[in-house]
């Protein structure tokens, strides 16, 4: 066997902060931890997983949304969120309900001020025994797949039952008097994995979103279709709970639109057709039509376009001009069909808006406090000429939705690229 001489100078550097624990942030954290890098993973919510937790089934594999890539010691085995044991990984310090308050210092030694929200339930102690959720409305399980596997407490719903649960919790996991704290950490690298946010299109008058209950977004549709959700996956009209017989989807809501976001949100055509496919094939054959400008099912995602056409989904090229609600709960949708050059009227039970994917709230602050480039409000790469999309600055990286609308496989790949770059910088 040949052993090649390679000079490796190990630069010992500090821990890495990963902001945002969606699929991208979790992947980055686990890969770093496996490579012996201390990692602080923060998320502003009580449950990690990000958008994925609410999205049911994922293209391109059409299985759950709730997993990410496993780790080095069991190579390649993917991990459902619930069994990812993020609170038990040796090199990961997971901080939930935590946000970044300020960043100072210099690349390589950033001083990050963290605001850590009240830790009402100790995730290491909670066993999900169910005692508190039976006793009080203030406790609930966000999702059976939530990570950490622990109940969440909502102080706004505090009641006597909650007090009693605090006393009775068999493991003493509950501390209702917990308060917010602050801490400052020193890290050598920062990974931004803050994801994206689905725009709430209530400002676009013609669709009636926010006013008409049967007008929803794709994310809301995903939750309706989820068998673990309220309606057990049945497609029911929000207004009256009646069975939905016809659905219309509208593409490019707030995207490709100078008044909102000029960019294309890239994945909404694919997930709209994924939903259209589920509805037409697996939900008692409701009728689906899609109003679009261009159908953008890149690469092998074209399969969804073929399959939905074969399943009888109707595609209308044009724009919606007006939506009116009837007393019986149905909606009249007026569409200008640019192929037929005609105005058409459709009567539907449910109108689903493929709303723009916008940068999350804190994106702008992070970009300005770290002096990064902005790509339409998302994190831009430091040097576009290098084509290194994940390198956002000196010792600053970004992956997943934080870089712009991305699908899960891309997010994971980017997270791995970030870890690769960090490790390369340390060898």
């Amino acid at each position, binding site marked *: 066997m040949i052993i090649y001489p390679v000079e490796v100078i190990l630069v010992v550097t500090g821990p890495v902060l990963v902001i945002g624990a969606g699929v991208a942030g979790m992947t980055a954290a686990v890969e770093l931890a496996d490579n012996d890098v201390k990692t602080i993973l923060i998320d502003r919510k009580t449950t990690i997983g990000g958008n994925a937790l609410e999205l049911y089934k994922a293209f391109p594999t059409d299985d759950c949304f709730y997993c990410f890539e496993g780790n080095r010691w069991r190579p*390649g085995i993917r991990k459902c969120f619930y069994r990812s044991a993020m609170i038990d990984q040796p090199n990961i310090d997971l901080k939930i309900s935590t946000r970044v308050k300020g960043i100072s210092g210099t690349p390589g030694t950033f001083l990050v001020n963290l605001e850590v929200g009240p830790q009402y339930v100790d995730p290491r102690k909670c066993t999900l025994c169910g005692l508190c959720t039976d006793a009080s409305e203030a406790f609930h399980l966000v999702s059976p797949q939530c990570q950490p596997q622990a109940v969440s407490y909502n102080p706004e719903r505090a009641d006597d039952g909650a007090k009693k649960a605090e006393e009775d919790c068999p493991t003493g996991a509950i501390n209702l008097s917990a308060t917010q704290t602050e801490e400052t950490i020193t890290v050598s690298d920062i990974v931004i994995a803050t994801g994206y946010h689905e725009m709430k299109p209530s400002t676009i008058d013609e669709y009636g979103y926010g006013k008409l209950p049967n007008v929803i977004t794709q994310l809301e549709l995903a939750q309706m279709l989820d068998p673990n959700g309220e309606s057990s996956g049945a497609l029911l009209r929000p207004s009256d709970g009646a069975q939905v017989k016809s659905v219309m989807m509208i593409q490019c809501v707030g995207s490709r639109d100078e008044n909102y976001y000029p*960019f294309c949100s890239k994945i909404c055509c694919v997930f709209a057709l994924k939903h259209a496919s589920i509805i037409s094939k697996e939900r008692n054959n409701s009728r689906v039509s899609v109003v679009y400008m261009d159908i953008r099912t890149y690469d092998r995602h074209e399969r969804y376009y073929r399959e939905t056409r074969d399943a009888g989904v109707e595609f209308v090229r044009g724009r919606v001009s007006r939506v009116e609600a009837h007393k019986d709960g149905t909606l009249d949708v007026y569409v200008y069909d640019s192929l037929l050059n005609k105005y058409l009227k459709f009567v539907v039970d449910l109108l689903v808006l493929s709303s723009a994917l916008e940068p999350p709230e804190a994106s702008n602050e992070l970009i300005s406090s770290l002096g990064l480039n902005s790509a339409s409000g998302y994190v831009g790469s430091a040097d576009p000429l290098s084509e290194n999309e994940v390198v956002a600055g000196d010792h600053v990286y970004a992956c997943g939705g934080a870089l712009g609308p991305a699908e899960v*496989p891309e997010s994971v*790949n980017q997270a791995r690229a970030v870890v690769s770059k960090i490790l390369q910088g340390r060898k």
Partner: protein
Amino acid sequence: MTNKSPVLLCTCGKQLKLDYDYLETEISKLDLAGSVTVHDFGCQDSGLETIAELIGESEARLVIAACTSQKIQPRIDQYLQSLGKDSSRIAYVNIREHSAWVHKDPSEASKKSLDMIRGALARVEDSKSIVSETKEIPNHVTVIGGGIAGVETALSLSNLGYRVTLMERESSIGGHVVQLPVIAPTGKSGKEIFSSRLKALENDKNIDVMTNTTVKFIEGEMGDFLAHYISPDDEDEKTLQTSAIVLATGFKEFKPTMIDEYHYGKNPDVVTQLELSRMLTEDRMVRPSDGKPVNEVVMVQCVGSRSEDYKRDCSKLCCTFAIDNSLEILERNPDANVQVVYMDIRVPFENEMIYKESRERGVDYIRGRISMVWENDNTTHVRIYDSLLNQYLETTPDLVVLSSAILPSDGVAELSETLGYALEEDGHVKDLYGKLRRTETRRRGVVAVGAITRPQFVFEAVTDAQAAALVLHNELHGGKIEKVARGAVLNVDDCVGCSLCAQQCPRGVPLMIEQTDAEEEDEAQKILFKAAIDTLNCHSCGVCQSLCPSGATQLNFLSNSQLWSEIEAVLEGADHEYPITVCFYCEECSVSTIDIVGTQRMEYPASSRLIPVPCAGRVSIIDILKAFEHGASTVMIAACEKDRCHIGGTGNEIAQVQIDVARDILNAIGWKGERVDMYRMFSAEPDRFTNAIREMVKRAQELGPTPVHKGTAGKWMEAVE
């Protein structure tokens, strides 16, 4: 020495509705049970301490009956590891999600729990300690293809401490990127983008670049591949030993000569988009036919793509390329007139803004199709069907540019013959798992980056390369691999040389090795090839074990005898009055589905008995028949969805074959094949499991007693006659 194991029974803070007195008494009566400890919190500090004490009682044997091992095992492993104790012989029984939470009647749930604990005791009795092993391999990787993806992978690997050999078929490196006049969204030429990497490559002592070098085939396995190649200075084939392979052979543009209507190949003024790129890069913006200036251009999108006749899917990049090239034409000739004929314009994210700019600068977009290109009086004529106006248009452009499909480069299929990675229908290298495992292939130690996996923009190919370098680093550990050798172990003496394991292992781990010095008296009896399995490369699925006719290869944590004694123990006392359904479930998507059913407190019949296996492919026909032999009424396998095998391969397809054969056997011997079935599931749809188990329980009741229950088993030969 004892073969008994202590048992820890967890009450989950006294919240589980099980009869613990009954369990304690009954377990204490079992031959294989040592001490029985009832504990309120197995997962908390006090529980961990108790576990650490119990682990010392019987050579590290221990059965923990608590909630799902998927949650507590990592914590327990870690705790024991920190104390230097062995956790590899612990068997977990899920009496919470798989029993107490899903069955109303506490006595039925307790009975089920007891049966499964009895099974785990049987499995633990014969278990082995699994220890860490080390091996050293060359810290050397071979990259095939010197486009931007290959070069970036080489640079990343070098930065991670590897020696790299980069082999390129052409005389220079750079691939397609250096032919592109502009790279969206940077606006810079491909050459500029490539130049800094070229410099880094030249200065990198860890990277050996070999141009004019063609890889013929590669054999071996991760850590010990042998690449056979030919290089120009030597006619003979040469070889290179290497630990891992990076496929970066890129794409080729479809040449649409066979599509009659475009006249490509017949009319020199009909070119492809890549040919136009080259013209722009070389500053030759004239008509190829006669060197006259180009003023009128028609671009045709989706040539060969999105077509049932050629490539079904979209090539992703060509809309952006067409727009970039249109702008580049206008840059050079502001008076030029560019028309783009399209079905959908597909430009992701901020490329939309470039699309908008091109419209503002006068590029004309016509939604429709080209119906014909012909020549008349030395002019090119094009007939366009405009689907928005529903009419035909005719123009006489100087140049017709076809946005032709992007296909994988030649030679991937040939290399896969010995390397064994899987291909997509479109000929690209297939991801190990589409949702999460890009760049990884079915073959361990082989990654694929850039356009060989799918059409990719340059920045995506660069990300791919960086990610793949990490994937390989995670596998090769810098050449010093130290890990727990949990997986298949081969007893060479038992191998009969059938090569089933080598053919069917989802990750290509077993190799058939020529037995050069086998000394057999009888030439005819001599086994020429025998298998070899490197346990450290194994993915622990057990497919080879379930197929091996002689039991030569077995998982070291779940041998045949372990599983058989578990089956027998679980089914103790099973009869027709309380018909039992045995469910073998994979410890990947199936365990998750069953766990989530528990967390959701969904109910299903308590006559089910669940037996874990690492992958559905571990279950053999014999395992299934053993379950019937010991009194099961029906048997099911719960597996991941088709083509979503966690191992990345074919575990659940192998399981399907086992089920099909088992059903044929049952039918042939008059036992009714419906007694066995396979179900696929994932946790987002938990009712897939409850529906499956209800169906199998229903069949158990309807099909009535089996010949084992009736005492007529073994007389089936008469029955068939």
